[in-house]
């Protein structure tokens, strides 16, 4: 190509640039294989428009089907129908099925998205009135009745109680959970298999049963009063297997080569764990812990059984009843007064914001660092969130050992 265009070749081995022909027609733009062609795009938009129109016609003019839900159902069916007709015009049954599957799958995902959005918006909108008062964030509910206006009372005591309880639970479960995970993945042996089996089994423990356990041991058998400490222990019992299991999954994803390199350089085992394994797994561990904490802070049932429901500030966790956010929401909404319900929704907004903040924090910590990812060395070790979302879910199946497979596929697709 480069030499053929040069007629006056002087010597072999010389490269000549191609001469461009000015009269040549402009190059044909390359067809994008991934994108929809214009007529197909028109078909999609047209189908949606006609489905909405049909749905309006049927629900508002032809059949007595009032309300938004019916409109959406009919619109979905009409979309299926229009899609089938339009794709049937150009193709056969295979195309019709493809079109229908795409419609159903997209509609399903839309429903889920609408559900999440509706839940968040609904909670915020219902609770917006108390949220606008500053005292809601700094006061407690001492002496405030369920009918009192919003410029009295607040949820600071519940927030404080939640923080104290989750703090104690973290102080207990984090070292134990991560320590157990290190034991299970780094030390090994027959005993560690027993521990792993039991820990995995206990992730199936329903949270209410964890609460009932603490209730019957501490409050009934030992005769201690209901307190923040008991609630923290109940949350801890619930969180411990979750964090231990999630951390174990994360540590198992650390490539064995890193460990071997460290040991081969003469590091002792604990130094290998401290300087190689844990730092490599740090983002994943942080994600696992933070999502475990988010789970613990939002769980109502163990707290319901163990902490009691104080309407005032309690700082000492051993000092008897102490409120927390989920419990406050539950007990307030049960009272049935409109003002109390609005307060409960406002508290739910605060709880949602706390969980969301924890979640964003987890995402930020877990985000793989650019420089490391480019080198490609520790990519599978750092990208825990995408290598194993099971980690975040809590009680889930034992880890699937897919480190290397998923790594390879990741590299191929990206």
């Amino acid at each position, binding site marked *: 190509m480069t030499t053929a265009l040069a007629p006056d070749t002087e010597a072999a081995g010389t490269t000549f640039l191609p001469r461009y022909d000015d009269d040549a027609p402009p190059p044909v733009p390359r067809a994008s294989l991934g994108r929809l062609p214009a007529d197909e795009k028109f078909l999609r938009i047209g189908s949606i428009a006609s489905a909405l129109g049909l749905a309006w016609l049927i629900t508002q003019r032809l059949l007595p089907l009032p309300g938004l839900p019916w409109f959406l159902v009919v619109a979905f069916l009409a979309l299926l129908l229009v899609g089938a007709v339009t794709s049937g015009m150009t193709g056969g049954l295979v195309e019709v099925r493809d079109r229908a599957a795409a419609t159903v799958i*997209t509609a399903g995902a839309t429903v889920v998205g609408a559900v999440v959005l509706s*839940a968040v918006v609904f909670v915020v909108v*219902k609770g917006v009135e108390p949220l606008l008062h500053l005292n809601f964030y700094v006061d407690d509910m001492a002496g405030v009745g369920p009918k009192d206006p919003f410029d009295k009372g607040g949820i600071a005591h519940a927030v404080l109680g939640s923080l104290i309880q989750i703090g104690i639970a973290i102080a207990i479960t984090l070292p134990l959970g991560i320590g157990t995970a290190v034991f299970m993945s780094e030390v090994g042996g027959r005993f560690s298999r027993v521990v792993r089996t039991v820990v995995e089994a206990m992730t199936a*423990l329903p949270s209410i049963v964890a609460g009932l356990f603490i209730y019957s041991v501490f409050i*009934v058998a030992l005769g201690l009063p209901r307190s923040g400490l008991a609630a923290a222990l109940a949350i801890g019992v619930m969180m411990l297997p979750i964090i231990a299991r999630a951390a174990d999954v994360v540590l198992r994803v650390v490539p064995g080569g890193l460990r071997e390199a460290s040991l081969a350089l003469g590091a002792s085992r604990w130094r290998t764990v401290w300087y190689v394994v844990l730092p490599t797994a740090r983002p994943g561990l942080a994600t696992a812990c933070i999502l475990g904490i988010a789970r613990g802070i939002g769980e*109502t049932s163990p707290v319901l059984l163990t902490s009691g429901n104080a309407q005032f500030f309690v700082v000492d966790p051993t000092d008897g009843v102490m409120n927390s956010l989920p419990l406050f929401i539950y007990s307030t909404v049960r009272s049935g007064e409109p003002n109390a319900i609005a307060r409960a929704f406002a508290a739910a907004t605060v709880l949602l914001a706390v969980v969301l903040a924890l*979640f964003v924090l987890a995402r930020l910590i877990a985000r793989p660092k650019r420089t490391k990812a480019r080198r490609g060395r520790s990519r599978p070790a750092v990208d825990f969130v995408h290598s194993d979302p099971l980690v975040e879910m809590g009680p889930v*199946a034992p880890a*699937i050992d897919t480190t290397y497979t998923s790594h390879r596929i990741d590299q191929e697709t990206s």
Partner: protein
Amino acid sequence: MTTLPVQDATVEVEPRTISRKATGADRVFVHSIRAVGATVLVITGGVGLFLGWQAWPTLTHYGLSFFTEASWQPEADILGIRAVLTGTVMVALVAMAIAFPLALLTALYISEYAPAFLRSTLVSLVDLMAAVPSIIWGLWGYFLIMPYAAEFAVWLDRNLGWVPLFDVHNADPDAALIDAAISNYSFSMFCAGIAVAMMVLPMSCAVMRQVFSQTPPGEKEAALALGATKWGMIRAVVLPFGRGGIIGGTMLGLGRALGETIAVLLILSPSFESKWRILEIGGNTVSALIAGRFGDASKSQLSALLAAGFVLFLITLVVNTIAAMIVNRSRSGAGTDA
């Protein structure tokens, strides 16, 4: 110039002894970390053993009738968990009937249909949905969804009332003043199941999506290259590959749905009747029973509640174990040479 050391023939060379035994700081490390593991074993195992130990007197006292008796009257020394077990299973089944298709469709959408720039956002959204506390889903179900769900229940009863599942006693779906009768259709296992479904959906969806994303790209491309449509490719490659993940994820969701408390407690109006009529007001689950009755329980009643909790734990454990086995044994995640 290098001089080699002179070998002294009289010294006997002893081979270095090789030992895997930890020495020095490692010994401390191994022992202390083992102690941590043992502590956690004692704590978690202790919970299970304690439950079994506490449940034993109840199980021996009531015998098999503990499982066949529907009513819960500790004063009359008659109690059993048939009603609450039925309720637990029904709520969980309703939840799964709603959550399974939605989770599958969402997982397919995220892994196959979603535009690339949207994908990671959607993954985060599903994970965020999993982190939303159950009390929020309870509020959502109670205040936002229940009125619509009740209307839908009336419609179902009117049109499909001959199916035993959708039958509702003491209510006439064709009544002129349906607003008065609608309370018979609220606070039902169906309404509770919707809220629970939203709680378990993200978990199932995340497992399914994870497995779908591990489908070997070579096989997917092969299907497309052979002329398959997108749906044809999904049916021929993605779904068979992800079958283990679909079943396992669903069962993990089921395990969580069985133990869900607070949304059920908030929505379901408690009644002790073993029934399958999911649209009718009333019902109970094991966890709601515990949450409702622990406060005024005497020692023997507490033992009965612990026994109920123990049974619930065993069921969840079995479901989770089967799910784990399915996920592990399937081809999902095994990968092929693409």
